[in-house]
């Protein structure tokens, strides 16, 4: 299976249920789409993340009912610095979608998904701990892997691999 170039044109991908749903529902929430290596990535405006997830979860054509994963990528020194990456799975349609939110380093805040999926709790705590991204509305946003008095966020790219000496 040789690699094919990624498709980033919304017009070419509007047949995909998740894209079609978002275009019909709220066009401005969808910032970019990408179809690469058989995986769909949607970049979402950070203020509409929570509503987007709810829409994708509850609509029968998409029904992404399972939040598989939350993580982040640090693109330091670029801005916007952080990608917060959500991986959704639909048990019914047997399909996946990846949602992405871009955040500035200065203002790395995004809405928490704990109201939609209580299971987001620990994933969000992990991202907060290791990247320093804050989740608004999270009930218990504290460090989870590192000790409470730890300084810095280890998975940021400006944090040295061997730690601060």
């Amino acid at each position, binding site marked *: *299976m040789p690699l094919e170039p990624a498709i980033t044109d919304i017009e070419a991908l509007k047949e995909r249920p998740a894209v079609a749903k978002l275009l019909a529902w709220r066009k401005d929430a969808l910032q970019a789409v990408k179809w690469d290596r058989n995986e769909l990535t949607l970049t979402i405006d950070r203020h509409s993340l929570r509503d987007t997830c709810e829409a994708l979860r509850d609509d029968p054509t998409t029904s992404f009912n*399972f939040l598989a994963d939350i993580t982040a990528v640090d693109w330091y020194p670029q801005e916007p610095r952080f990608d917060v990456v959500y991986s959704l799975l639909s*048990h019914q349609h047997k399909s996946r979608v990846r949602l992405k939110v871009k955040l500035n380093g200065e203002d790395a805040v995004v809405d928490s998904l704990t109201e939609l999926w209580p*299971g987001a709790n*620990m994933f969000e705590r992990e991202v907060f701990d290791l990247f320093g991204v804050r989740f608004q509305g999270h009930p218990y946003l504290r460090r989870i*892997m590192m000790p409470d008095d730890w300084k810095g966020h280890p998975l940021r790219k400006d944090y040295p691999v061997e730690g601060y000496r």
Partner: protein
Amino acid sequence: MAKQYDLMPTVETLGDDRTMVLNMGPQHPSTHGVLRLVLELDGETIIRIRPEIGYLHTGIEKTYEAKFYQQGIVLADRMDYLSPFTNELGYVLAAEKLLGLEVPPRAVYMRVLLAELSRINSHLVWLGTHAMDLGAMTVFLYCFREREELLKIWEALAGQRMFNSYMRIGGLALDVPLGWFERVRKFLNAFPARIDQYEGLLTGNPIWRDRTMGVAKMSLEEVIKLGGSGPIHRASGLDFDLRRDMPYCGYEKFKFKVPTHTDGDVWARYVVRVLELRESQKICLQALDGMPDGPIKAEAPKIILPDREKMKTQMESLIYHFKIVTEGFTVPAGEVYQAVESPRGEIGFYMVSDGTAKPYRVHVRGPSFANLSLLPSMCEGKLIADVVAAIGSIDIVLGDVDR
């Protein structure tokens, strides 16, 4: 109101002092590692329970960013010491997806065989320790008898008992030694009778039934909202298995059933896992029967180390060997999420490449990590004695939780 210390406290006068906070772990034999639970108790009833994790955090995700792609296989092993091959499989599949690399059929079949042997190994350790937590000592010895044979089989194949590091990006490290398939077949043929032995010790046992039935019950809706996967959601009635429903690594060629149960309690998880043992044995036999001949590595000299023989006789191979070992190989930029059905549920590798020889980011969605968030719902309002049963039924591996 001032407390009257001259009177013996009764339930009414205790007020806020009624509850007690109890630490369970991080060093407690039934927490399967270094899990610490903070329990708030009212008598024997649990009011709140909070898992405190991180005692085994080793920064594997950070380490990945400093290693070449091929060096990461070793780290994938170490996250889950009970099913090393499933973790390796997830890692190499993710890297192969990034590269657009296809592996030859013999390697595919070997990978399936090893992944299922891992599942058997993991479920055996789970069954033995889970039963021991609940007081059934004997099962542990029986399970570890078979596990020992499995570890010897792995040692004969890869030279190591536990952290095998046998898979490679683009294939496998070595071909199989002489007589190895016969040894696996002998083990598999004897295995169903051994499962009958475990079931003979547990399934009809009234103490076992009392300790598991109706304990730590979860509805399917709750399980999905909290992110539970694998045997846990199947025990609550969801008929979904990544191997069958979103096949990877050639699983679509194998015939097997996906066991489910509707009770959603510790008993249901036990039943589902024991049935999975039987199904895994069948998949292994299919893999052995259908094992094709041929190469075990893909044709990609810039990615896969050349054979020793070629390296010593051909200049070109020697150069490739030197290049791969010292500089690694570059991977086209992009990102993938590869999920694999591990014995504990969905293990996902999210890998981001920026076009260099080292991954820009590797994130592991640990199934134990996600499943652990079910524990509070399983235990709150229930008795403290059932916490041990609940933890056991999640089948937790702390290396996978903390990474």
